[in-house]
């Protein structure tokens, strides 16, 4: 994306000559200034000659621009041998007239200077070489050797100035190399003459580890990257990888991918990790970090995705063997080309080199999942800020490519478990913690999710089991006496079962007792009811008796009245009389 932009820009401005060297064209915004000389300087052994040579070879092969290599140090035979290991066949290129090698040998002991001279001979040689193959590119490596061979510096300076002017007139894109001086870019001040583009190479040793770096010191009339960029020299030549923190502009995916452990997916909001997220697994030694990582790799390969596994601790074969013991077979994936394990000791390169190397491998392999196991070892070769900056850039690089990255981190026993040495947790989207839970004389593994951005995740601890069929997560025992795992959990579970049974029996017993009591009460109720009914009957009889008595009484009174010949309407008579009296 940045490439397209730069092409447009360079078309408008200064014409550029693509070097074909990986990454360099990006930093220089399209290549070296076309038709002008550029200076490549640096101390001995930092790759000047190689850079210049690659510029010519790539020009000849990729851009059909033949080139002249004028060497002041090495013979054509030596040069050809030196770059043969990079797959450059100089003899073939020279035979095809794509390249011309000229070795200018200056032996001071053979030369005597008397009076005025100029370097026209050099011009003629160069001109002849350029014209004979129609060269568009020229390398002068290292022209400063002239200073060693010639005594008259005044002439030399004037002639070099003329040479660079002549190169410009000739219209060739030239690379001039120069040895680095003390306090100056080149020992003899070549930068005074070559002022369009200056590239500085550096090979620094820090803690016994060397890192090659490249910087565009100046580029007249063009935008360029100003940072120091690490570069690699390997079997494919030079690669400069401008990995800088691009910022937080990358696209975000809503796609979810499985962690390879079904119950972990459940804990992560039922679906697993987000695609393109960064995952950190911390834990002390032997808590199953690598196994979790391998499960993820296995799951990725099962989905048919490529996975790149950077192993900083174990050899590929060892990983395969170990993972097979928990039922994860990675070998078929390697054979299918879906998985690549890249094992290297961290101390072999500097941090920047690791980053460059990783970025290069990622670019080549194009994985969708990257595993780095563990990042802890990187701290051995860099300071905390360096590691953090490197990881930040790596994560940005991966996120920009929508690659899901899983890092493992060995936390030290004794320290706070949540502590990551580099404070990198803030860079991570999902953070799992594996820890030992030590109860009853045994260690068991527990897994928590410390954080997981953008999903509802479980807050519970799970017991982490490595079985013959991979990783299993089971619920831990949460009882009155706290969290229990392993055999303690099993023991407590048995205990629980027993007490459960006992409780059930007790209840049964109580139930029966109550039943009995109820029945007894029911009996009592029946007795009382009988008694009650007896009493009721008695009462009824009494009422009846009373009624009968009353009736008999009235009859008897009537009888008596009749006998006494009294008024028929006995009862009412006196009342009538009384009322009348009131009137």
């Amino acid at each position, binding site marked *: 994306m940045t490439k397209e932009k730069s092409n447009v820009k360079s078309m408008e401005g200064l014409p550029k000559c693509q070097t074909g060297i990986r990454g360099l064209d990006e930093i220089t915004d399209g290549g070296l200034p076309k038709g002008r000389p550029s200076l490549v300087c640096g101390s001995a052994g930092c790759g000047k000659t190689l850079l210049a040579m690659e510029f010519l070879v790539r020009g000849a092969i990729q851009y059909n621009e033949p080139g002249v290599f004028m060497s002041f140090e090495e013979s054509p035979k030596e040069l050809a041998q030196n770059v043969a290991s990079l797959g450059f066949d100089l003899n073939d290129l020279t035979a095809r007239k794509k390249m011309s090698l000229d070795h200018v040998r200056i032996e001071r002991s053979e030369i005597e200077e*008397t009076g005025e001279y100029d370097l026209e001979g050099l011009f003629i040689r160069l001109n002849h070489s350029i014209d004979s193959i129609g060269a568009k590119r020229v390398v002068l490596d290292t022209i400063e050797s002239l200073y060693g061979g010639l005594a008259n510096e005044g002439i030399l300076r004037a002639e070099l100035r003329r040479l660079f002017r002549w190169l410009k007139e000739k219209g060739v894109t030239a690379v001039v190399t120069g040895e680095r001086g003390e306090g100056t870019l080149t020992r003899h001040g070549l930068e005074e003459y070559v002022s369009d583009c200056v590239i500085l190479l550096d090979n620094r040793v820090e803690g016994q580890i060397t890192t090659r770096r490249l910087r565009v010191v100046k580029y007249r009339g063009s935008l360029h990257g100003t940072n120091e960029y690490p570069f690699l020299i390997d079997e494919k030549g030079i690669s400069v990888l401008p990995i800088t923190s691009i910022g937080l502009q990358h696209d975000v995916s809503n796609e979810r991918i499985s962690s390879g452990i079904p119950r972990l997916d459940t804990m992560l909001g039922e679906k697993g990790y987000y695609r393109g997220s960064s995952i950190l697994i911390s834990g002390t030694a032997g808590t199953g970090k690598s196994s979790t990582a391998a499960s993820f790799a296995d799951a990725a390969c099962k989905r048919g995705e490529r996975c790149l596994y950077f192993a900083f601790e174990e050899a590929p074969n060892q990983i395969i063997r170990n993972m097979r013991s928990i039922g994860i077979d990675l070998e078929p994936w390697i054979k299918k080309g879906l998985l690549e394990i890249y094992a290297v000791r961290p101390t072999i390169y500097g941090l920047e080199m690791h980053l460059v190397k990783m970025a290069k491998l990622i670019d080549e392999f194009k994985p969708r999942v990257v595993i780095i196991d563990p990042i802890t070892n990187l701290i051995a070769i860099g300071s905390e800020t360096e590691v953090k900056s490197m990881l930040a850039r790596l994560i940005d690089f991966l996120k920009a490519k929508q690659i899901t990255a899983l890092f493992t981190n060995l936390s030290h026993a004794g320290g706070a478990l949540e502590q990551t040495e580099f404070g990198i947790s803030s860079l991570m989207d999902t953070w799992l913690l594996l820890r030992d839970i030590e109860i009853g004389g045994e260690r068991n593994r527990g897994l928590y999710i410390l954080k997981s951005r953008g999903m509802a995740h479980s807050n519970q601890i799970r017991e982490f089991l490595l079985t013959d069929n991979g990783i299993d997560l089971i619920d831990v025992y949460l009882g009155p006496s706290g969290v229990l795992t392993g055999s303690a959990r099993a023991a407590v579970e048995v205990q629980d079962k027993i007490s459960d049974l006992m409780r059930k029996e007790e209840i049964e017993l109580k139930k029966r007792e109550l039943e009995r009591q109820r029945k007894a009460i029911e009996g009592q109720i029946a007795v009382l009811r009988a008694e009650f009914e007896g009493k009721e009957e008695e009462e009824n009889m009494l009422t009846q008796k009373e009624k009968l008595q009353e009736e008999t009484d009235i009859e008897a009174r009537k009888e008596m009245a009749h006998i006494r010949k009294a008024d028929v309407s006995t009862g009412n008579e006196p009342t009538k009389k009384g009322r009348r009296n009131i009137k």
Partner: protein
Amino acid sequence: MNDITDDITEPESWELRLYVAGQTPKSITAFNNLKKLCEEHLAGKYRIEVIDLLKNPQLAKGDQIFAIPTLVRQLPQPLKKIIGDLSNTERVLVGLDLRPLKEK
């Protein structure tokens, strides 16, 4: 090739090559200086070959020429090179190892 040969074969023969690039003042001075010097010290046993690189640029590579003018002593061995217009006769004589010869 502008060959100027004063060739007399003697037990000791001197073969000198002067590389120039066109008829520049420096080249002419160099040639005159050389001629004079040879007449003085090597009369009758030298041969001068003048090579104009403007005409034969491919010849520059062979003798490792980068400066103009350059005098190359092909014979006697070992090969010697003197660059410049040869105006400093003393230095030229040292360069050509001619000093001891003169004393003979």
